[in-house]
């Protein structure tokens, strides 16, 4: 077993795409915050990116099979951490999501996302049939359901939702039967009223204001409206770097983070959006390609778990920016400012690199 893959085996294309997206993000964070009380935020983001790159390379060196071996223990650690954050966590913005590590507040749920990717990969790799049995499907559902419930309790609907596509994509690739899929979809529909009742008032408000944005011109409907105005007023060519009035005058809510795509679209226009979304598409397709070339099922599940998580983030965030989905508070990977979220993406890409480095190894 040759366990020392060379540097030329890294996916340099993937890294180039990644770095380009990060650069767009840093540029837009600078544009959105310079001249305001938040000026200098791009430097903090750069620091996170450096840390992320280091962690990514570190994680890629460690054989993913060894990581998968420890999946049950990682799962227990993740659950314990979620319980701990509920018990002792730091409350910010009305939710218990943060624990202080190394002088920064980290979101435990970001780490848990990574653990669930690993656990799901391990679980479905253990399934040896081509068709996924109902029994295994339910098992997988329970494995994901427990942390999901704990994250919902924080409450953090956005992160909790990200766990769902991990399960869906995993199950799909593990041979999910169409009849089971149909049944789950039906049950899900029936459960919607129940879900509505357990939702927090602010979450319900977001959904209603999404349905009827004109009725709530100042609340979360206002945020979406301002975002749409920013995007729409950018036009095809954009208003130019630092010239977005919606952005510069503070009409776009959290313009350096959740709504950074809105600021980007205003200043860079449709051509800039084409570039950004093109890069994300290339990133995701590159991930799928890596999955297709993985040496084994376990590696394939790992890579596709990462692809599912990132794809879901991009979809939900960008759809929110253009008013096609309700506001959920999911950041745009690699462009939005944020420590924990950035670290998560790099660690996840680290896993992908890990799988790629070992594709020829027997």
């Amino acid at each position, binding site marked *: 077993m040759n366990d020392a893959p060379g540097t030329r085996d890294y996916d340099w294309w993937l890294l180039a795409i990644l770095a380009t997206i990060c650069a767009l993000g840093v540029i837009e964070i600078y544009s959105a915050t310079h001249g305001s009380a938040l000026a200098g935020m791009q430097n903090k983001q750069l620091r996170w990116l450096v840390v992320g790159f280091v962690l990514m390379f570190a994680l890629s060196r460690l054989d993913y099979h060894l990581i998968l071996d420890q999946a049950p223990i990682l799962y227990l650690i993740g659950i314990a951490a979620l319980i701990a954050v509920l018990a002792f966590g730091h409350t910010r913005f009305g939710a218990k999501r943060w624990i202080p590590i190394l002088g920064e507040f980290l979101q435990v749920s970001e780490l848990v996302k990574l653990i669930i990717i690993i656990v799901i990969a391990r679980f479905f790799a253990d399934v040896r049939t081509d068709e996924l049995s109902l029994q295994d499907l339910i098992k997988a559902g329970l494995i994901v359901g427990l942390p999901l419930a704990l994250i919902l309790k924080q409450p953090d609907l956005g992160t909790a939702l990200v766990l769902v596509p991990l399960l869906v994509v995993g199950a799909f690739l593990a041979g999910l039967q169409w009849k089971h899929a149909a049944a789950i979809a039906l049950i899900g529909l029936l459960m919607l009223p129940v879900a509505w009742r357990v939702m927090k008032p602010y979450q319900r408000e977001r959904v209603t204001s999404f349905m009827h944005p004109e009725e709530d011109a100042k609340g979360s409907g206002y945020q979406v409206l301002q975002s749409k105005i920013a995007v729409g007023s950018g036009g095809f060519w954009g208003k130019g770097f630092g010239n977005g009035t919606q952005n510069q005058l503070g009409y776009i809510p959290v313009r350096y983070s959740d709504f950074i795509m809105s600021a980007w679209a205003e200043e860079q226009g449709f051509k800039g959006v084409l570039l950004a979304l093109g890069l994300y598409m290339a990133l995701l397709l590159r991930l799928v390609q890596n999955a297709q070339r993985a040496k084994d099922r376990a590696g394939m599940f790992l890579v596709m778990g990462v692809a599912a998580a990132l794809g879901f983030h991009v979809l939900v965030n960008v*759809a929110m920016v253009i008013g096609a989905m309700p506001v959920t508070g999911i950041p745009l990977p690699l462009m939005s400012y944020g420590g924990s979220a950035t670290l998560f993406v790099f660690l996840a890409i680290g896993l992908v690199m890990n799988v790629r480095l070992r594709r020829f190894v027997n």
Partner: protein
Amino acid sequence: MSYWFRNDNRLPQARLAIASYVIVGMVGLLLLGFWKLQVVDSDKYGQMAERNRVRSIPIIAPRGRMLDRDGRVLVDNYPSFSILLLRDDPALIDKSLPAIAEGLSIPISDLKDQLETTKNLPKFQPIVIKPEANNADVAFIESHLFDIPLLEMLMVQRRRYLPGGFMSHASGYVGEVSEQQIEASNGRFRPGDLAGKTGLERQYNDILTGTDGMRRVVVNSVGKEVKDLGHLTEQEPIPGKQIQLTIDYDLQQVAEQSLGVRPGAVVALDPRTGEVLAMVSRPTPDANDFAVRISADEWKSLNDDPLHPLLNRAIQAQLAPGSVFKIVTATAMLEDHVPEEGFKTFCPGYGTFFGRQYHCWVYYAKTGPRTHGVLSLHDAILKSCDVFFYNVGMRLGIDRLSYYGSKLGVGRKTGIDLPSEEPGLMPSQEWVERVFHRKWYAGEVISVATGQGAVTSTPLQLARLIGGIAMGGVFKQPHMLKDAQNIGEERFPISEPTVEKITDAMYGVINEPGGTGGKLKLAGIEFSGKSGTAQVIGYGTRDRVGKEKKFEDNAWFVGYAPRRNPEIVVSVLVQESGQHGGEASGPVARDIIKAYYDKKARKTQGQLTADDERYDLGPGAAAALTIHAQPVVKSASGIAPGHAASVDPER
């Protein structure tokens, strides 16, 4: 450890391919969404972004100034700052309200009230929370630009009147438009706009009011103006037009000083044209108090003041004209020959009519004889004998008296260009039947003939009346706008002998021995006039309750010069002074007429001073405001006949 999964290389390539298509489809859909916003609906959102960031801020147009007849500035403007509260962000307002209240020293309950009353206005419309910012307020706003980004300063133009209530009843004052005015204005007024409330400010509001300009500024998401982004298009304000008044600053000043603090009024007219040369009413509020928002308490105290400082007595005081009215009675007598011109009567100090004694004022004289003896009309006017006119009135009857009275203007508005003029009252048979549903008592005419009883008139009315008679029956409509067109004119032909006799008598009042205005002579000027001392209550009642000041007589004097076709007529009312018209009011009229001739002499001799020559009508004329010393009358002492402020060097 299980190593089996290292060798399981069955990959679901078909399903992975589906994943690729899903990704492409997903990005495609998102791009479609962006295409719709950024290309299809781009214009719509572009306009919305523009509306978001661009706000129109009014530039208040200055009101037109008021100039005196020589072009000197009487009413001007000065720039000042109002503090606006931006209402775009209710949560931030709630948070910052205590700090704002403390920083601007406004009670927080006031702020809350203002927010409550304006809560139905659009959110983007700021409200004025402090109409006039002081230096501390400006400093507070500047130092909290970031933590309280809700305050904005708006430059406004405030009215500046001459201090001490100078001419304030004539000029009137401005105030925030009322709801009714906004409704009636057809969109011309918005809440918070200033409009003339009284006086000339109200009369000529349309001329004086300019058109506010508009500045389009870039604002951030809390509605705060972003300075460094520069302003966009600007619409210049169009200042209101200035008006030139007929008022003569010099005469007005003399009138203000001469009347002092005594309650009453002065009107000076040029009977040849109807131009009002001076108009004073006392007591007076300072119109500057109204230029900034007046508090409810101040307003209440002004309204409840028993002396009614808001009343413009020159056109609104409807009081018994007293002996001044004898000129009407005399005119009726001479014109109708009832009784004949040679009529004489004996005045023993009283007359007995219908079994009742009517006293002449001379009966109560402190010095000298208590009777007038035998008088003709000329002497009766000179000495203002009541008994003579009781007899004339009895012979004339109310119908004739009422006819002449109203033809000469008593009971009718003069039509001066000021709001809220009162007509006074000329009683008649028809009037008592209509109002009291009874017949006229024959004895009532005795009082009316001497300007007592139900007859009332305003100072302005009497000025017009005396001036018009001296003009031979030509009554020009009194007015205050210098360039006024189509001045109304009433002609009530009075025969030349009648005018001669009456003006002779009025000349005698001042210039012949025994006249009631004998102390008022002016060397070289045909100063004529008629005094009046009108009872507020009957003499008998006054004797019973003692000489309390509030029952004192109203002193009238209407003087003019020269004797025929006068250039100036001055009507003076001093209320409840305890003195006769000739003593209390006569000197005021004399001061003004003397000042008129003094100025005229300086003009003809080419000795006009710099002050008189300031005919500058341009914008630079504003400086004139500070040059003139103001008449400040502080104490009530020294208001006796001598009145120290007189400009007469002979006194």
